[in-house]
């Protein structure tokens, strides 16, 4: 087939309904979030003392952290879905939650006596946390990967990894309201580990499904 013939075919292909990746991603996240919410309601639910907890800085910091991580990683994922993406400035925003988390850890180390550090870090629910954040992220990640197939990422595995991290961030928002461990020492240890699991799964899914 000659290139001019191919061009004739392409030009004859009618204009389909324009695909808006941003909208698809938003719709996918909404659908996935309903699934996550169902898992949350079935297996977890808010912790019994949530009203008192909501008045503590430690508890609220978990949500600020998760949000500060979820938002830029999600926007970055969306940006990377385009082939001519220039994500540098946006990527810098990913440092914000790290600084926030580090500051929380430093303050915690200052106010808590050192013989309690280990107990706070290990917490009550570390293994549960490591399982539940990926589980809550799974429906959103699956929907997000499907939506991102409309994109054309230059780095499919990286895009998938960021999608995984972003959904882990949203999952952490849900999980934080259940988790009885509020210490930044706990949060800075187990939440990022759970996020890494999601990112690894996302990278694999991206490599497999987002190449074009």
């Amino acid at each position, binding site marked *: 087939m000659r*290139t001019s013939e191919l*061009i004739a075919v*392409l*030009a*004859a292909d009618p204009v389909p309904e324009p695909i808006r990746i941003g909208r698809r991603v938003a719709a996918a996240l909404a659908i996935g979030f309903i699934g996550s919410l169902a898992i949350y309601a079935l297996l977890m639910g808010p912790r019994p003392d949530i009203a008192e907890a909501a008045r503590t800085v430690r508890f609220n910091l978990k949500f600020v952290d998760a949000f500060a991580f979820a938002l830029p990683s999600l926007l970055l994922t969306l940006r990377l879905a385009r082939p001519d993406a220039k994500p540098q400035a946006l990527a810098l925003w990913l440092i914000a939650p790290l600084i926030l988390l580090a500051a929380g850890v430093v303050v915690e180390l200052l106010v808590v006596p050192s013989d309690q550090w280990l107990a706070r870090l290990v917490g009550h629910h570390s293994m549960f946390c490591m399982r539940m954040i990926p589980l809550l992220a799974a429906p959103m990640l699956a929907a997000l990967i499907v939506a991102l197939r*409309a994109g054309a990422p230059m780095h499919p595995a990286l895009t998938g990894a960021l999608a995984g991290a972003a959904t882990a961030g949203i999952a952490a928002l849900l999980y934080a309201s259940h988790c009885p461990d509020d210490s930044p020492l706990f949060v800075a240890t187990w939440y990022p580990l759970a996020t890494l699991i999601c990112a690894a799964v996302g990278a694999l899914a991206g490599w497999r499904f987002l190449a*074009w």
Partner: protein
Amino acid sequence: MMRASIAGDEGAYRRLLEDISRSVRAMARAAFARARAGDADVEDAVQETLLAIHLKRHTWDAAQPLAPWAYAIARHKIVDALRRRGRQRAEPLEDFQEFLAAPEAEDPHALSDAQRLVDGLGPRQREIVRSISLEGQSIAATAARLSMSEVAVRVALHRALKSLGAAWRRSIA
């Protein structure tokens, strides 16, 4: 021009694809030469790029310039094509703009990847692609000849192009 094309101006779109194909051909030649890969598969890389540009045209942000977007896709596909040949990765470093003016003739290329992949389509899709590409018939004429509705021809053509893109990707893996 891309804006007009997306709005459905077939002639503008055809001219745009022709312009892009010339740039991509020059780019691919340079990249293949640098990788000492010979010219044999250059036209395949050009055609694969065009198909990718077509199937992914919604990823172009109308607020951004078109050339860097097209260049990114072309580079991606040329690197793929070279990798498929098992050669070392060669970066086509030159600026896309340099190639915009280059009037390069295409290779007459009988047994191309695209041809092989079109042959792998279902009979009806193959017939439609052939009718429009080889015989230069319009959608309306093709529809009349195959006694299908125009809408059905359009849908079948669109599906054919998508499966062509998917088949191409599988041939890389």
